[in-house]
């Protein structure tokens, strides 16, 4: 070792007080005479100080729980398989396990198996109604009744979507805000029903009367848990139906457009019964979706405790005049739920994931005490009302095709105006001819079509806004492409017909 390097190493160790007495004396002697070494010591000291400024990791409060879960899970696995596996296959399995562990090092499934009770307890802590946690307004609640989407956090970054699959089974999805469907709103309802301020107040009071019952339906906490009472599917229907019944009284003329067949006595009874049952009963069986798992468990929601806690927090805030921290609900689908994509049917829930949506299907969820079977009879009513609210909120024309004509109806104030255009007299593919080769879905580039009564032009004029309002750009593009194709096919077909007619004419003299 070079002499210089040895001295420098001693200098570094001197800084750490790790020298023997003779070494220390040697260093101090050098330092007393060498400015260069003094500078070197100073540099080393600064570097050491910088390293010591590295911040330590925050504590992990549930590390032990997860660890013990993983240990328990591993113990069960080895004790069950060891006696059956021959050495060769054990080696293969070890390799597979290694690959699986590498791909999925979190082992959260095992944690869940091993520490079910502890984790369930952990995720049930501090659950509070999404109504207060996400600061939901009456408009949010109405929109939920109308379009099944409920914001899960104050900053509206994630939404809970309730739905039914093709077989009528319930599912729910947690979607990020950019995947929000936005299928309808309170504003649409107000426009379609032409409600004035006083009537809006009535709607608000109806929504308020549900808030107590609704607050127990969807709970969230700061551990990214969402607890859903399956009752919420019925609750949403009951609220919507109740609002329809009430709006009938507010503006009968407008209501008749939304529900042309009216609400019959049987439906009215179902609404009243369902509303009273739902408002007075809260089931204690919840579906918990957590960053670790999805499970079903009992949970008794006590609004008094939550209210007490909230009041306490409010008092503290007032006392200290501190700003309340915003409650944010964050769930990282990619990382936290990645494993579910492969874990289908491992639990009693079927979970489907993509990068922005986590969907949980709920097969055979048994909650007899809260089942209100007759509420299903309201489904057609709700569906019709929803569609018509959309329709009348925007005053979109209705277009009906018959064999020889196109009838266009549109609503303006209280009257329906209609056009009837004869189909056979028109040049159907004029748009395609005039705009050959251009972007058909880019409306700005469209050249005008001369004949003022051209059917496609009329459709374009009336449907332009409809497409803009109801479809994403992608969907609009797709539909326009389809339309283009249809027009081209039609054009070809007409041309072929012409040729066939011509050939028939030419054929006849030959006979």
């Amino acid at each position, binding site marked *: 070792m070079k002499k210089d390097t040895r001295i*420098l190493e001693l200098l570094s160790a001197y800084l750490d007080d790790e020298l023997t007495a003779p070494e220390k004396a040697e260093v101090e002697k050098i330092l007393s005479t060498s400015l260069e070494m003094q500078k070197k010591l100073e540099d*080393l000291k600064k*570097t050491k100080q910088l*390293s010591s400024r*590295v*911040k*330590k990791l925050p504590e992990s409060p549930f*590390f032990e729980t997860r660890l013990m879960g993983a240990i328990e899970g591993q113990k069960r696995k080895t004790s069950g398989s060891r006696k059956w596996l021959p050495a060769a296959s054990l080696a293969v399995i070890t390799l597979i396990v290694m690959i699986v562990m590498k791909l999925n090092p979190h082992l959260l499934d095992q944690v869940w198996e091993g520490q079910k009770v502890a984790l369930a307890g952990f995720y049930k802590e501090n659950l509070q109604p999404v109504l207060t946690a996400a600061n939901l307004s009456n408009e949010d609640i109405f929109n939920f009744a109308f379009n099944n989407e409920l914001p899960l956090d104050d900053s509206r970054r994630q939404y809970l979507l309730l739905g039914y699959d093709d077989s009528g089974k319930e599912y729910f999805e947690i979607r990020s805000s950019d995947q929000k469907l936005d299928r309808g709103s309170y504003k649409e309802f107000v426009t379609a029903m032409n409600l004035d301020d006083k009537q809006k107040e009535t709607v608000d009071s109806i929504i308020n009367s549900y808030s107590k019952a609704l607050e127990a339906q969807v709970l969230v906490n700061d551990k990214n848990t969402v607890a859903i009472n399956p009752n919420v599917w019925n609750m949403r229907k009951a609220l919507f139906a109740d609002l329809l019944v009430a709006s009938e009284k507010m503006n009968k003329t407008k209501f008749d457009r939304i529900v042309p067949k009216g609400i019959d006595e049987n439906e009215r009874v179902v609404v009243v019964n369902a509303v009273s049952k739902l408002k007075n009963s809260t089931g204690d069986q919840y579906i918990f979706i957590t960053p670790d798992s999805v499970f079903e468990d009992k949970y008794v929601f006590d609004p008094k405790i939550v209210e007490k806690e909230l009041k306490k927090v409010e008092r503290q805030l007032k006392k200290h005049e501190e700003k309340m921290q915003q409650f944010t609900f964050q769930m990282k689908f990619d990382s936290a739920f990645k494993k579910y994509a492969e874990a289908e049917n491992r639990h009693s829930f079927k979970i489907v994931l993509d990068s922005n949506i986590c969907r949980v299907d709920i097969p055979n969820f048994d909650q007899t005490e809260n089942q209100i079977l007759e509420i299903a009879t309201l489904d057609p009513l709700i569906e019709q009302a929803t569609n018509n609210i959309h329709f009348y909120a925007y005053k979109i024309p209705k277009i009906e095709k018959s064999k020889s004509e196109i009838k266009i109806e549109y609503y303006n104030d209280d009257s329906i105006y209609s056009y009837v255009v004869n189909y056979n007299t028109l040049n159907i593919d004029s748009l395609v001819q005039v705009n050959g080769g251009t972007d058909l879905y880019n409306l700005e580039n469209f050249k005008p079509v001369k004949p003022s009564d051209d059917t496609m032009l009329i459709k374009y004029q009336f449907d332009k806004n409809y497409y803009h309002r109801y479809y994403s750009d992608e969907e609009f593009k797709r539909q326009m492409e389809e339309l283009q194709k249809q027009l081209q096919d039609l054009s070809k077909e007409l041309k072929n017909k012409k040729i066939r007619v011509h050939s028939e004419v030419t054929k006849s003299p030959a006979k």
Partner: protein
Amino acid sequence: MNSKDKEQDLQQPQIVSFDDDYSIIRRFIDGDKSAFQVLVKRHKEKVRNIVYLTMNNSALVDDIAQEVFITVYRNLKNFRFESQFTTWLYRITVNRCKDYLRRMNVRKIFSPLDESFEVSEYSTPIENNDISKIVMDAISKLPAKLRMPLILKDIEGFSYQEISETLNCEMGTVKSRIFRGREKLKEILQPLEKELL
């Protein structure tokens, strides 16, 4: 309080700590499984920190720390009471980190490096949090054999003896690597000297 009492007060915590781990391990060997949780509780944060500092990746911390404690759990019955429990525990921790680093190095060959440590980015005054991050990034650029002794000494406050036992190398090697680690670190942080110091 006389000087003798003072001396005893200073010594006591060390002795208690030493004995405590041993007595907890004995309880575990005698069949008290809850004793393991006590051990985990006592040492988990130190283990997690060593992992965090060595890997400079908080996402890996709990996975690696969990593997460390699973290894301890499996082998604790064979603990020979010849050295401190912590020496053994930290050795497992360091070795597990080395395994991961090795694997990551293999992976790096197949994927381009993330050159995130751009010196020119820090023209504005540097906050305390930034200093921590910058120094962490700089430390992570050191070769593993220089990084580990430096972390154990300058951040975790181990003695040279403890580092030598944990890393299973000679005291002279520890001394030399800590010096070289500091030199290399200074070199990496040189462009930021004015802002940092």
